[in-house]
């Protein structure tokens, strides 16, 4: 028997799991249209690889990875693409995001389906690439790209792999049911993870309120060296950090990830998805979702295609809209209410809770905090919820951050125990959002400053260059003015016979003038060639070049005139002296 550790705090809310856990997984029927969001994971949204009107087969790539931190999205069935555009997606904001709308043709034809060849099944890199290509993101709720998670920073740094089967949140039974019905798939997926990471130990953590699932797992892991660890039921033992603490006694450091202490946690559903991707070549196009709540006649778990409209799924379970209050995605503790039932099921939809108003009453009006401290006792992260609440309420974001607001896992235990019904988690979420926004603003401001300074430096440099050129011209002019003694020497010499010094000191030197003329002519010819060239090519700068040629023509004329004038002046002076 393994020693179990403990995590602080935690609560025992009513479980409400039996409504949905006692019937086997049903297969949801095909809806009229599927709406597949291009972002169902943490990271960059996928980039569409199809266009409107295209026909696709089941498993075809609809959106491919954009950048390293992204996962592809696949067609859940065969059909044609009706539309690519914004559609409401299940997100607490209720805002739209880019989605591909697919009209199924009902044939459910598979496209190319590539299981990983047996020769590659031992190679961690091939396995990782395959998992990534199958579009697998964490199915537990956060949707972290699995292909990235399984590639820890240093090789062999993962000592413990934990499969999270705790499923501590009330009402949700998707993992429980998946284990009961398909334990072999789950264990096989975990074995693939073990092959990739080669850890010292492989554990499955499961709460003791799922005896059937425990039994199923125990028979499935027989002889694999994987250990099923039964932990006491207490919310939120299924939180990644809490489960790690219960099983290993170690705490994930502040701001760190489990890999920092050599642990990696995977969800049961993700493991099953890995199994299907590797052995059957199926990308992640379906998942198990719990349908539960008093407003449903037939609660249970369904295997549904990603993109199925939520209303369609609820209707299939006998949704009684008259009896329904809010419909939540996720459980009653951490879920959020859906403003629109046309939203689709996504990779992270583990539960749809359609409760009656009596079952999920609207929150009572909050009362003043009486500083009872229950929240601090319940907090599994050993934070000071009351203190954080004061800071959040008064907008003292930096103090909230100092009190480790970002360690809050938003489990809702503090709100649940609060006798004043203060929506504590909402305060923390909004404060976290504000702090993140401030950080982004800071980054933007820094970048703007950099650009401003770079521009300033560039302008100064240009100014300095101009100044230097002007200075150089000025100097050249001054030199030219001083050279007349030399240029005077020439006419002196030429007119030596007549012994004249009559040449004016300003008279330009003929040699320089000739040089200028030659230069101007060369430039003009050059310009003319460019103009001819541009005309031939039909470039759009012809008129500009024409102007330039005309300008150069003028310049040549002026130079010629100046030269002639200088020559005639010379002859005149020469003539006069003769």
């Amino acid at each position: 028997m393994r020693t179990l550790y403990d995590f602080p705090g935690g609560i025992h809310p009513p479980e409400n799991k039996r409504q949905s856990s006692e019937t086997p997984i049903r297969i949801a029927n095909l809806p009229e249209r599927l709406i597949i969001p291009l972002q169902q994971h943490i990271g960059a949204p996928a980039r569409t690889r199809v266009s409107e009107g295209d026909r696709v087969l089941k498993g075809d790539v609809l959106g491919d990875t954009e950048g390293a931190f992204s996962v592809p999205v696949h067609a859940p069935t065969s059909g044609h693409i009706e539309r690519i555009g914004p559609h409401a997606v299940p997100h607490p904001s209720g805002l739209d995001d880019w989605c591909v709308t697919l009209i199924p043709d009902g044939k459910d034809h598979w496209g190319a389906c590539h299981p990983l060849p047996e020769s590659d099944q031992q190679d961690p890199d091939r396995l990782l690439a395959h998992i990534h290509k199958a579009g697998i993101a964490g199915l537990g709720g956060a949707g972290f790209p699995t292909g990235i998670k399984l590639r820890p920073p240093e090789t062999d740094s993962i000592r413990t792999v934990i499969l999270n089967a705790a499923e501590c949140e009330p009402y949700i039974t998707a993992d429980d049911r998946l284990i009961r019905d398909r334990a072999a798939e789950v264990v096989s997926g975990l074995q693939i993870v073990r092959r990739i990471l080669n850890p010292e130990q492989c554990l499955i953590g499961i709460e003791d309120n799922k005896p059937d699932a425990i039994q199923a797992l125990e028979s499935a892991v027989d002889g694999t060296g994987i250990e099923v660890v039964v932990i006491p039921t207490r919310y939120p033992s299924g939180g990644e950090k809490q489960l790690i603490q219960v099983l290993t006694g170690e705490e994930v450091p502040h701001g760190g990830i489990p890999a920092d202490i050599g642990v990696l946690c995977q969800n049961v559903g993700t493991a099953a998805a890995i199994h299907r991707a590797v052995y059957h070549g199926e990308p992640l196009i379906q998942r198990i979702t719990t349908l539960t709540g008093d407003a449903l006649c037939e609660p249970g778990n369904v295997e549904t295609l990603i993109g199925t409209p939520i209303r369609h799924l609820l209707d299939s379970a006998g949704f009684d809209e008259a009896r329904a209050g809010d419909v939540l995605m996720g459980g009653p503790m951490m879920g959020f209410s859906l403003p629109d039932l046309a939203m689709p099921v996504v990779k992270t939809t583990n539960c749809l809770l359609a409760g009656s108003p009596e079952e999920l009453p609207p929150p009572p009006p909050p009362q003043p905090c009486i500083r009872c401290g229950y929240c601090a006792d319940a907090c599994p992260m050993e934070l000071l919820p009351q203190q954080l609440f004061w800071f959040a309420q008064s907008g003292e974001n930096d103090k909230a951050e100092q009190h480790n607001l970002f360690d809050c896992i938003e489990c809702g235990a503090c709100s649940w125990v609060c006798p004043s019904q203060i929506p504590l988690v909402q305060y923390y979420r909004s404060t976290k959002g504000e702090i993140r926004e401030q950080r982004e603003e800071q980054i933007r401001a820094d970048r703007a400053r950099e650009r401003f300074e770079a521009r300033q430096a560039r302008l100064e440099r240009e100014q300095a260059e101009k100044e230097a050129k002007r200075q150089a011209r000025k100097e050249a002019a001054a030199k030219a003015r001083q050279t007349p003694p030399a240029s005077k020497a020439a006419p002196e010499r030429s007119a030596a016979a007549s012994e004249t010094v009559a040449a004016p000191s300003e008279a330009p030197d003929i040699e320089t003038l000739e040089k200028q003329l030659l230069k101007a002519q060369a430039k003009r010819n050059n310009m003319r060639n460019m103009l001819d060239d541009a005309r031939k090519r039909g470039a759009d700068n012809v008129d500009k070049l024409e102007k330039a040629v005309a300008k150069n023509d003028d310049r040549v004329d002026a130079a010629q005139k100046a030269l002639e004038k200088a020559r005639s002046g010379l002859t005149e002076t020469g003539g006069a002296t003769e």
Partner: protein
Amino acid sequence: MWMSILIAVGALVLLAMVFGALLGYASERFRVEGNPLVDQIDALLPQTQCGQCGFPGCRPYAQSIVDGDAINKCPPGGESTIQALADLLDVEPQPLDAEHGEEHPRRVAVIREDECIGCTKCIQACPVDAILGAARHMHTVIESECTGCDLCVDPCPVDCIDMVELATDIHSWRWDRPDASPMTGQVIASDRSTEARA
């Protein structure tokens, strides 16, 4: 007697010389270029470089604040910047000086591209080089770099630049702060009867 006084004075002079040399060396070795307070203030300013404060950029305004100017002349930063400056300088926060403009939500410039004649005037006006284009070719604003400073709007001879407020999308959305109003003025349940009587 005199001897001991001399020794004491000598020792003190020696010490003074040693520490003086040390301090002199340190002040040369660890010299701080410029005023660090200007940097700190500049870091709090929003870097729109819009000049609404009356200075040609954020840094000159930061310098001016150090020299004793008011801290409430920055409309893009708004109340939060004033608060941060007040905290840094340990002065009373003042309301935003309306003379310099109002606080807006974040905006970006958008060029109506089919109307642009390619005069490059906006490019020259942009303090952060966020406008892309060449003479007689269409220009466009790089949205991610635009600080929403407004400076490109006036120079445009055909008025084809709009300042557009950025709509919240699913990536920039964040949770609202819960409405605190129901709580104010309320008393705990056990005191409610006394409150009602009073």
